[in-house]
């Protein structure tokens, strides 16, 4: 924990890269799970690795967190090589997996104090930090209760609190909101945001939820079948998918047909629902243009859709799968 970096006068140039991965490969038997990954996570940022089940996200986290050995490639975490200096890596990271890695026979407080002891904090530091975290994670009332009485959401919060106990500078969160209800997910997002705001930590998270990456991450990389198929800010990725659309549902078949003729190729039709999908960009004028061409009284309702990461994801991973088959 005494390791600091990026200071002038160090042995090398100031480091602003928390995680540096190049040419990372990993196979389990015949199955290639990671096929040449390159990525770079700036210090103090939130990086989201987005991908479907089976894309290799967890394998990636396990390798970066020194739990699993890579077959090839170079990884530096906080400037330390994960193979040659695993202990130095471990002394600056915190890891929260998909399932709560808590001791259910202990109370929440005892779990936190266990972490404090393993981070070699003093008794006083441990008690102080544990009280802070219990309060921050809304577990203060439950602090003295055994963890097996906790709800799933409480266990996930405790798990994250345990990860933060030693004030790690780089935090890995493997699907931090998997299995949480919408409210639990919001709470977790708020906690993650407050972490980045209040402390200079770097967060590497994996998720299958596009909204989550969009909400939290400065940088997003899309992982599919062991390869990074796209990388950039959420806005940049969205820009790679052609515009949004207006979804118009008509009251009658005749009005639907008339409107469909009016837009021609610009619209795709769904005859069953009497729904037309007309391409727009995100300007008010383009929406006005669409509405001005039709009889607005014949429209039952209108939905506007702006491109989100879902569209990016489907476009990118769909292509990658096609290319392979």
């Amino acid at each position, binding site marked *: 924990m*005494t*390791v*600091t*970096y*990026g200071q002038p*006068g*160090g*042995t*090398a*140039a100031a480091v602003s890269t928390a995680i540096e991965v190049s040419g990372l490969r990993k196979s*389990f*038997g015949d*199955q290639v*799970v990671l096929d040449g990954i390159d990525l770079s996570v700036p210090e103090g940022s939130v990086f989201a690795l987005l991908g479907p*089940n*089976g894309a290799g996200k*967890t*394998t990636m*986290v*396990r390798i970066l*967190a*020194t*739990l*699993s*050995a890579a077959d090839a490639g170079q990884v530096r975490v*906080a*400037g*330390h*090589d994960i193979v*040659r*200096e*695993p*202990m*130095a890596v*471990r*002394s600056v990271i*915190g*890891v929260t*997996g*998909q*399932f*709560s*890695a*808590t*001791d*259910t*026979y*202990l109370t929440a407080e*005892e779990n936190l104090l*266990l972490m404090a*002891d*393993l*981070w*070699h904090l003093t008794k006083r530091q441990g008690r102080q930090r544990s009280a802070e975290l219990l309060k921050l994670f809304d577990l203060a009332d439950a602090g003295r209760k*055994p963890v097996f009485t906790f709800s799933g959401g409480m266990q996930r919060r405790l798990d994250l609190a*345990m990860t933060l106990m*030693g004030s790690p500078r780089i935090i890995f969160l*493997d*699907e931090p909101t*998997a299995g949480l209800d919408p409210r639990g997910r919001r709470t977790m997002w708020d906690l993650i945001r407050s972490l980045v705001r209040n402390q200079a930590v770097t967060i590497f998270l994996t998720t299958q939820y596009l909204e989550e990456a969009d909400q939290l991450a400065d940088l997003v990389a899309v992982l599919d079948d062991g390869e990074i198929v796209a990388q950039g800010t959420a806005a940049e990725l969205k820009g790679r998918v052609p515009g949004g659309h207006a979804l118009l549902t008509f009251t009658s078949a005749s009005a639907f047909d008339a409107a469909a003729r009016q837009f021609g190729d610009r619209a795709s039709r769904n005859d069953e629902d009497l729904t037309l999908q007309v391409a727009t960009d995100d300007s008010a004028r383009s929406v006005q243009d669409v509405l001005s061409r039709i009889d607005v009284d014949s429209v039952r309702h209108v939905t506007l859709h702006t491109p989100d990461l879902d569209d990016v994801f489907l476009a990118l991973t769909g292509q990658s799968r096609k290319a392979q088959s």
Partner: protein
Amino acid sequence: MTNHDTVVSSAKAVATPSGSASVKVYPLRDTATMLRRNVKQEMRDKVAIIACIGIPVLFLLLFVYVFGGALKESVKLAGAPSYIDYVLPGLIIMTAAAGLIGISTQTSVDMTVGIIDRFRTMAIFRPSILIARVVASALQTLASMVVVFGIAFAVGFRSNATFMQWLGAAGLLAFITVTLTWLGLAFGLAAKTVASASNGPFPLILLPLVGSGIVPTATMPTGLRYFAEYQPFSPMINTLRGLLLGTSIGWSWLIALAWCAGLGLLGLVWSISVFNRRDRKRGVPGPGFPGAPTQ
């Protein structure tokens, strides 16, 4: 990776300013921390406590009160004044075997919920995870043995052993417990599910019955007798019985210690190899991260 578990120098690391170079490792402190955790866990797992003590006590009562009367008449009891004096050593050894179920199950739970993976991402003295688990479990098993002895005394067990013989018995039991516990640890680390971890060592509980534990092996048919005499628990039972009755133990103590050392070494090597190579060996990511690619 274990070779990095001493003081790791990172002086050449690009990101480290010169000076603050190494990660200090605290073997004793980490082992003590882990031991506290494991003992707390054991004290709160009432079901495991009851199982570890209950199984041998149940057999004790069964053999003393239900079968004891008949068995006493039909067998020569190797110099034991009453049947309970004859049968107790086998049931004490059974207690050691029952302890294996405890450690195997607890270890498997730790592996599956991912807390061992959490420990492995921390800058701690890694062997402390295994050492503390074994020490805690061995202490629990030895405490269970004391309780079983207590109950045996209450229902009529008497010993002619001298102080030195009691000391020898205690040493023998400590050695048996610690060595077998490593085997239990290996079962737990290697098990794919908690259920298989708790069932795996179960046959060992019954093994003393098919040895010199309940009746003298001389009364058995030839094939079975051969197995009963040469299986690992028989020399342990014979040695303990000799010490408690104050009779001669011959060379059985040496055979018993050799078996223990061998089984303990097997458990140790097996545990370490599973612990260090889990994900590579299996070809699947370790526990705590299900839903991963290969599953």
